[in-house]
C-alpha cells in the first residue's frame, strides 16, 4: 500500500493551528444571533406595515398565524437541522420539505379562511395578488439570509436539495406573516399571493444551493 507521507500529519495539524475555526459554542451563538436578527427584521417589517389586518376576526387570524408558524417551525427543523448525521437529512426528506411547505401553508390558510365568514369574499385584483407575492418574499428575505448563513458551504452531498428545503422553510415564515396581514381569503389569492412565493424560494434554493451551500475547496 502507499504509506502515508510522514510529514503530512505535522503539516495538517500545523495548518489547522494557524487557521482559527469556531468551536461548537461559538457556532451555536452565531446561529442563534442570526436567527434572532432574522426574526427581528421580519417582525419589524411586519409591524411597520401596521400589524394584523382588522378586517378579519382576531381569533381566526391568530389561528392562521399559529398553524402557519407551526408549519414553518417543522419545515425549518427538518431543513436546517442535521438530525443525527453530519450529512443532514436525506435527499428525499429535503425534497419533500420543499414540496410540502407551500402546500401545507396553502391548505392551512384555506382551512383558516373557511372558519371566517366575515372575511371579504371579493375585491381581489391581480395587483393585490402581486402585492402579497412581493411582501411574502420580503418577509422571507431575512430568514433566507439567516438559514443560508448558518448552512453556507457545509453540504458535500446534496446542496441543491438542501437549498430547496431551506427556501421552502424560509418562505413558510414569510407565508405566515402575510397570512396574518392579508384580508383576502380566496383560493386563487392564497395560491398566487401566499403559496407561490414559497415555491419560488424553494426553486431558487435549488438553483443556487450548490453555489451557496455546497462544500467547496478553498
Amino acid at each position, binding site marked *: 500500500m502507499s504509506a502515508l*507521507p510522514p510529514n503530512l500529519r505535522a503539516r*495538517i495539524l500545523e495548518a489547522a493551528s494557524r487557521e482559527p475555526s469556531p468551536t461548537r459554542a461559538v457556532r451555536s451563538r452565531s446561529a442563534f444571533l442570526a436567527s434572532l436578527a432574522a426574526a427581528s427584521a421580519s417582525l419589524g417589517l411586519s409591524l411597520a406595515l401596521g400589524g394584523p389586518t382588522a378586517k378579519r376576526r382576531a381569533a381566526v387570524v391568530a389561528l392562521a398565524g399559529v398553524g402557519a408558524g407551526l408549519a414553518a417551525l417543522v419545515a425549518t427543523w427538518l431543513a436546517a437541522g*442535521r438530525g443525527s*448525521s453530519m450529512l443532514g437529512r436525506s435527499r*428525499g426528506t429535503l425534497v419533500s420539505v420543499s414540496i410540502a411547505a407551500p402546500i401545507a401553508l396553502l391548505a392551512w390558510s384555506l382551512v383558516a379562511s373557511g372558519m371566517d365568514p366575515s372575511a371579504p369574499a371579493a375585491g381581489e385584483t391581480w395587483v393585490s395578488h402581486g402585492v402579497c407575492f412581493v411582501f411574502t418574499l420580503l418577509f422571507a428575505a431575512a430568514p433566507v439570509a439567516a438559514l443560508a448563513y448558518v448552512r453556507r458551504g457545509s453540504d*458535500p452531498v446534496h446542496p441543491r436539495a438542501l437549498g430547496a428545503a431551506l427556501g421552502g422553510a424560509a418562505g413558510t415564515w414569510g407565508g405566515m406573516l402575510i397570512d396574518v396581514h392579508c384580508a383576502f381569503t380566496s383560493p386563487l389569492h392564497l395560491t398566487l399571493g401566499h403559496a407561490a412565493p414559497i415555491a419560488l424560494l424553494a426553486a431558487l434554493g435549488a438553483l443556487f444551493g450548490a453555489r451557496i451551500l455546497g462544500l467547496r475547496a*478553498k
Partner: protein
Amino acid sequence: MLASPSLHAPAAAGGTGIVLLPWARVRTAAVEAPRSSADVSAAMSRYAGGDESAFAIVYDGLAPRLYGYLTRQTRDTARAEDLVQQTFLQMHRARGSFVSGADVVPWAFAIARRLMIDGFRRGKREVLEDADERDEPHATDPAADDLVQAQQLATRIRRELARLPETQRVAFELVKEEGLSLAEAAEVLGTTVSAVKLRAHRAYEALRAVLGDVIDGTPAESSTEKRGGTA
C-alpha cells in the same frame, strides 16, 4: 499486504450477504484503521467542543483510510495527499457544526469525495487507463513472482471496476474496498441503504461475470466479448 478485516467480512460491511471476492487477499492498497469509528467520532466531538489535541486523534483514525481511498481513486499519491490535507482542513473549519454523537466517517468520506470530484471537474483528471498501463508490474525477481501476479490481478480488477457504471462502482468501492457500512456509504452518496445495497450487488455480479476465473476457477466471459468484441 493483507486487506483490512472489513474486506473479508460482509456482515461487518453492512450485512449485504454478498460474498467477497478473493482479490481482497491480493489488494496492495488496503488499509487498517487504528481506531474504531466511535473513538474517532468521540474525538471529533471533543475537538468541536474546543479540545485542540483531539484533532490529532481524528487524523490518526481517518487519514490512512482517506489516503488509501483517494490514492485508489486518483492513482496519484501527490494528489491524494493534497486532498487528504484539504479534507482535514474542511473538517477543521466546520468543527463547530459537528453534531454530538454523529459518525465522523461518512462525513469525512463525503468531503473527500466532493473535493475529489470538484478537482476532476476543474480538469485535473488523470487518464486512469494510461496510469493502469504504466503501473503494470513486471517480474524481475523470481521470488517476487507471486507479488507481481497479485499486482497484475489487482490491476485487472481495477480495470474492470473502471468499466462499471459510476453509481455501481462507487457503491462497490465504498462498501467493499473502504469497509464502510451500507448505512455509511448511503450517507456519503446521499442515497438510501437499499439503493447502495442494490448497486454494490449489481457491481459484484458484473465483476463476477467477467472475472469468474478469479472467483471460482470457471472461465469468464471477457469484457471485450461481453461488449460484442468492440472494445
